[in-house]
């Protein structure tokens, strides 16, 4: 099954930011969103992840297939690395967390409390969460923030494995991951013409 986005308009704080976005993302492929700061990448990803309703247009193949990772990692400072990961595994009905730990080189940190990790280590843990969701479509918002080059490579490998297994990935990043399967979509052409908030159109 593939992700299809048609004529999608998304808004933030009621103001339309992107309009008429359309693309498809087949399994085994990745799509990288590009665009300057404030162009609306985060907003688009949140909409596709189902966290906010679209202003117009259709999204098919998202919903229950999405594993979302945002700017903030949703880590509990007072739980250990294992406990944090294990919780999400349980929520998503997955049993084994070792592959995720291994893929992001967290094995040496299993008993450390998440609050005591460095910025990059936290990020790695947040990304490892994706692997325990068992969900095929990864929706990622700037996943490589604070990661060093080695960790970026770990992440690229993880995405690669995920794609090979038939998954797909949609992400916004400012850096290049060197993924062969990745297409790039620049959101700049879709930027909404300056308008008032959609909900305010009634007030014209």
């Amino acid at each position, binding site marked *: 099954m593939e992700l299809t986005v048609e004529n999608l308009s998304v808004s933030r704080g009621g103001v339309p930011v992107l309009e008429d976005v359309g693309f498809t993302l087949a399994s085994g492929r990745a799509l990288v969103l590009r665009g300057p700061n404030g162009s609306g990448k985060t907003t688009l990803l949140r909409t596709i992840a189902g966290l906010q309703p679209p202003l117009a247009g259709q999204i098919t193949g998202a919903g229950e297939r999405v594993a979302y990772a945002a700017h903030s990692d949703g880590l509990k400072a007072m739980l250990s690395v294992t406990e944090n990961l294990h919780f999400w595994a349980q929520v998503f009905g997955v049993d084994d967390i070792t592959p995720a730990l291994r893929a992001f080189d967290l094995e040496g940190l299993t008993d450390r409390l998440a609050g005591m990790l460095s910025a990059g280590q936290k990020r790695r843990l947040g990304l490892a969460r994706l692997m325990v969701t068992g969900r095929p479509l990864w929706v990622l918002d700037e996943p490589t923030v604070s990661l060093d080059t080695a960790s970026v490579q770990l992440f690229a490998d993880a995405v690669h494995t995920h794609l090979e297994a038939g998954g797909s990935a949609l992400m916004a990043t400012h850096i290049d991951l060197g993924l062969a399967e990745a297409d790039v979509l620049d959101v700049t052409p879709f930027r909404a013409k*300056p308008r*008032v908030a959609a*909900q305010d159109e*009634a007030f014209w």
Partner: protein
Amino acid sequence: MSLWEYANPVKFIRTTDKVLPWISVLAVASLVIGLIWGFFFTPDDFRQGSTVKIIYLHVPSALMAINAWLMMLVASLIWIVRRHHVSALAARAAAPVGAVMTVIALATGALWGQPMWGTWWAWDPRLTSFLILFLFYLGYMALWEAIENDDTAADLTSILCLVGSVFALLSRYAVNFWNQGLHQGASLSLDKEENVADVFYFPLLVCIAGFVLLFIALVFLRTQTEIRARRTRALMARERMA
């Protein structure tokens, strides 16, 4: 449905602009007539002395305090079901008016209580439930103020209004159960035996009409204001992004 046309902000402003002067004039007229009649030309009550004159403020404001909340409840329901922006804004516009009415009812009641019951305040069920109603008004207004996004605020406050109404009713019964009161029962009933004497009754009716009209005029005006403020915000946002 023709009535829903007035849910269009432009149409609403246009219509209310036409009727607003008339309503205002009527409101002021009936308030002036009613209050002057009541204050200068009614006799003292044989038991309560001159304090009966407070009734011309106390009862209408108490009625409006409750009815304003009811109106907000209806407007919230309309927003939830049909998502007409004007109704959400009307609810927002009515809240401060209702709150002021509640304060007036409380204040006049408290002043009245001093000579009649020998105390400013007693935990009488009716008094108490008014105090609770005032708290609901405060919370409702505070929630509107606290949320930036207008639609989110409308959604959340209307749910609060619904849930709050249920709890306000519950509180009313709870309070009744908790304390037997001093306050008189409703005497505006159609049952003639119970009613206050006609001398007090007619000016009172005029005052009530005045309060109702005043409420309508204020809600119209304030809703217009909310609509305009909203439109201003919308236009500014557009300007900023251009």
